[in-house]
């Protein structure tokens, strides 16, 4: 045993983290998987009888709708972020010049400030008594305040607001790393600007797009603050269900099943994105 420990020079470096991951990352996930198949008893304790009823509840009825809605919202947010983020990244890389890094940082910086605060700022801005409404009222453009919050649109806007920087950054990195001589070659061979974009630029930034997708789709899917603050009780997402069962109801088995299902979807998406987007996607995330 001692010989093993001394010849495996890598152990002191990666040993501790491996132990930590097993203990505090994999085990908890395993635990909720385990709990998801159990029932909750009358006084909140967990009854060790195997059951699938948690999952059945999840995929049917109201909960099923919420799950579907979450997927839809995440997808919509992803697409919007892509449609806004790509041109933005393109503009910064191509026309940014010396200010390139500054412009990039201006997009990234909001994501560094407390997420809760940014959502709060957005909420008060759009609220019933918020600045937008009061300005519009003062200008006489509307006669009574608009109800801008507590609907799906507000939630999606909030999601885009939160996660847009994470789509911009990897796409920026991908575009920035593009070899300009490739585009010059395309010009030399007679390609128009539009052609050049679709046949050279876009395919080569595939990795950045998929990295951005992973960084936007997955967090959006598991969101609960945005729907809570901007959607109210009317627009719930999967994340809210998890919080609801874990914190409010103390129903760990049910909450676990939702969390487990969410995890499974997330892992699937990660796997697909890396498969299609390639190794580059993985690198761009870093």
């Amino acid at each position, binding site marked *: 045993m001692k010989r093993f420990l001394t010849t495996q020079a*890598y152990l*002191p*470096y*990666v040993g*501790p*983290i*491996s132990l*930590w*991951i097993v203990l*505090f*990352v*994999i085990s*908890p*996930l395993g*635990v*909720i998987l385990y*709990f998801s198949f159990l029932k909750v008893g009358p006084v909140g304790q*967990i009854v060790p009888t195997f059951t699938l009823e948690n999952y059945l509840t999840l995929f049917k009825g109201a909960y099923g709708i919420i799950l579907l809605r979450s997927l839809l919202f995440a997808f919509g947010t992803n697409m919007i972020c892509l449609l*806004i983020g790509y*041109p*933005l990244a*393109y*503009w*910064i890389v191509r026309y940014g010049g010396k200010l390139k890094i500054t412009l990039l940082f*201006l*997009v990234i*910086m*909001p994501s560094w*400030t*407390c*997420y*809760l*605060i*940014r959502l*709060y*700022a957005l909420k*008060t801005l759009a*609220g019933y*008594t*918020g*600045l937008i409404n*009061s300005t519009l009222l003062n200008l006489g453009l509307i006669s009574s305040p608009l109800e801008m919050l507590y609907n799906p649109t507000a939630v999606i806007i909030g999601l885009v*607001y939160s996660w*847009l920087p994470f789509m911009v950054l990897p796409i920026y990195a991908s575009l920035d790393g593009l070899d300009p001589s490739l585009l010059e070659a395309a010009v030399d061979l007679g390609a*128009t600007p*539009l052609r050049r974009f679709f046949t050279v630029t876009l395919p080569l930034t595939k990795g950045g797009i998929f990295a951005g997708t992973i960084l936007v789709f*997955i967090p959006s899917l*598991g*969101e*609960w*603050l945005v729907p809570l603050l901007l959607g109210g009780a009317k627009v719930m997402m999967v*994340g809210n269900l*998890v*919080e609801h069962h*874990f914190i409010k109801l103390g129903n760990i088995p049910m909450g*676990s099943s939702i*969390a487990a299902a969410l*995890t499974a979807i*997330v892992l699937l998406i990660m796997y697909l994105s890396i498969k299609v987007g390639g190794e580059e996607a993985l690198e761009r995330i*870093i």
Partner: protein
Amino acid sequence: MKSWNKTGKILPAVATLVYLFMWAPVFILVLFSFSNNKFGIKWEGFTLKWYAELFNNVAVRNALKMSLTVAIITVVVATIAGTLTAYGLYKYKFRGKRALRTTILLPIVMPYVVTGAALLAFFTRIVHVPLGYPSILIAHISFSVPLAVFVVLGRMARIDWTLEEASADLGADRLTTWRKITVPLLLPAIIASAALIFPWSFDDFTITYFVAGVGSTTLPIYVFSQLRYGATPVINTIGTIFVTLPIIGLLLVSLLQKKEVT
């Protein structure tokens, strides 16, 4: 080249709108933290009274203390652990290396609600870790180590590792080489990872919310609890500090970097 002109005009327009969209709410929040309005949602004259109130607020002070303590400990532990792990991953081949490289991504990829929920269940039903500093620290470190690993790993490819061999050749044992050569070479990456981890830990809400238990309040949790009362200027003031500090930090870092280059 008609399409050229179009893109020439559309792109900057889109860019401006995006920047406005991203910054307007924050900007207004900061603005209103100086407003005399009772709810902090309108402009009613300049005042600093909300900031004064903030300083006297004991709950805020305690929450701030907790957030800072957690963040500092997290930074220290995570950067050390992350650097060691990155070193091991870069320099050695071993069984399970691929597995480690993939699983180390897990904490960052998992949605916060899942991480929070899983840890809560784990801490309360399986290992009985007290909810509060222990649980929060474990959660934060778990998330932060991967960040440090990837930042440091990214830098490792650009270092001339014969420097370590030269150090050994000149008579330094492993520990001395690590101390005098390896760490100084990796220092920029270690600092960069600290710069990533600190704001993340300080700002984190969701995971902390799940594992904090009753009675442990970090600053974001305090803010959340105040949200129940609707809009209050206190949130604006805290928010302003939350927003300006990273920006100041960033400016400092970029100034330091400029100094290093010259």
